[in-house]
């Protein structure tokens, strides 16, 4: 299935408030979705028989400091004559955003998909997809560690590559390395790690 078809399926299910346009169609098409819809969309993409994206190939975090905010989508109006007069759109202000890109693959149908979601840098909350693909466990921890994105619902969101008491998130463009590093013994703790594998979504069969 092509990315356009998949996007149509997603819009059917979730509506246009959550599923936005396809980005960079000439390079590698990515469907932009709202952060709040990530978990539901993930379950839908994995569960539906004709989609069945059972492998999360990669979960990358991006820091896009100068991205201009997208204008809000206007609702469809049936009768043009009733449309209010178009006002000149003000220049969109650049805001600092973080992005998460999911690259999915289906072994059954051999098609790939890229999903992208943007969050504001001061409130970077994205639902965790660990319940759908356990592979997301460490990827999300790394995205949290390096970029500071909070994945809601992740059972053990702690730093993975850096020491537990490191300050700051290095891959952000405005990161400044700390001048000194003082070991903070209380921060480096070994908490009791509960089992981190929630129930996975049942895999779809190809003939559904």
């Amino acid at each position, binding site marked *: 299935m092509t990315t356009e078809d998949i996007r149509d399926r997603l819009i059917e299910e979730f509506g246009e408030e959550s599923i936005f346009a396809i980005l*960079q169609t*000439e*390079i*590698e098409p*990515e469907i932009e979705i709202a952060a709040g819809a990530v978990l539901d969309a993930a379950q839908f993409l994995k569960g539906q028989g004709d989609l069945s994206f*059972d*492998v*999360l*190939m*990669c979960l*990358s*975090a*991006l*820091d896009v400091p100068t991205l201009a905010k997208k204008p809000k989508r206007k609702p469809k109006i049936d009768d043009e004559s009733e449309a209010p007069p178009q006002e000149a759109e003000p220049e969109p202000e650049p805001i600092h955003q973080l992005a998460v*890109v999911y*690259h999915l693959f289906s*072994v059954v149908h*051999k098609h790939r998909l*890229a999903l992208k979601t943007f969050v504001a840098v001061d409130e970077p909350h994205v639902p965790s997809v660990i319940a759908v*693909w*356990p*592979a997301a*466990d*460490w*990827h999300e921890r*790394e995205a949290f560690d*390096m970029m500071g994105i909070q994945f809601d619902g992740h059972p053990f969101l702690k*730093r*993975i*590559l*850096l*020491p537990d008491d490191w300050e700051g998130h*290095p*891959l952000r463009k405005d990161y400044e390395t700390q001048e000194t590093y003082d070991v903070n013994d209380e921060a480096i703790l*070994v908490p*009791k*790690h509960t089992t*981190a*594998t929630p129930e*996975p979504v049942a*895999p779809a069969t190809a003939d559904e």
Partner: protein
Amino acid sequence: MISNVTTDSRTGLETREMVLNMGPQHPSTHGVLRLEVVTDGELVVKAIPHIGYLHRCFEKHAEALSYQTVIPYVDRLDYLASMNNDLGYAIAVETLMGKSEKTKIELSDRVEYIRVVVAELNRIASHLMLLGTFTMDLGAITPFTWLFRDREYILDLFEEVSGARLLYNYIRVGGVSYDFPPGFEKKITDFIDETLEPHMAECDDLITFNKIFIERAADVGVVSSEEALAWALSGPMLRGSGVGFDLRKDDPYSVYDRFDFEVAVGDGRYGPIGSCWDRYYVRRLEIDESIKIIRQALEQMPDATEPDEVRSAIPKTVRPPEGEVYVRTENPRGELGFFVRSDGSANPFRIKGRSPCFCNLSIMERLSEGCLIADLITILGSVDIVLGEVDR
């Protein structure tokens, strides 16, 4: 500390779980990995891997370099399979550049075949290393020296073609750095015919079908195929569980679609499918398949039509169009993916290396529940981790 005290109901004896630390320095963690092992005597309750001891901020460095100069850093990700890393990265950048007519790169056939030959040789060297260290972890010390002896020949060949034994900086964006020296193809075929194949037969005699080895490895660390896909395992970890997915066949890149080779899949002949022995055997068979590919590539490789042909397509500055791609290739350890985002300048905006070992190691905690400490070593060995890749 995690130590549960339980009281045995029959005898009233208190038993306590023991927390052991394997690593970061330990003979068999294959690098600086720390496994926090909670055991109940000899039985492992949970083994939690802690990584990050070899984190060298590759991704942050890459943002300050130019695309070609990232290549030595990419070498050092999976330092046992540098050619494959280089290849993956070069193909990712070339794919991104190919999206715009202005920056498209046309690679000559000779370059493609050279890349395939060195990548497959490096795959053989990497698998020899794994077969040796895996069996050494299980106590058979001799296959380690035999297989390393053969790996030394490959490293000599690489030294001849690129100047370095382990970290080559050989495959560049748009070509390779040096052509094969005269007589090199014959050296490779001589090595394969006279040294590698007879030695692999010896190694099979000694260890691959040894009863003790099979008993140690064939019931242990079983990963089902659904789990393998859910945890995004790749490479021999995935194929050992019965899923016959190999990027060289199913999503071919470079000139891999011109070769005739099989995909080695675990068949569970000595135990459940997806055991450590299956993964070991998949890697053993992959050496044979790589030999086939090398032979075909050397036969099909065209001669150089002009001097310095291998460098002629390398652009002066690598400046991909704005955009982001995710391109994946088959590393000896699995699916190596590069997520490259360019903002139109000569420095990458963001490079994320999706290393196969990072994903393969994440299943370690699940696999370790309920095994014995000796099994823990076996499982860890069969995952075939290289910490440079896990931590980047």
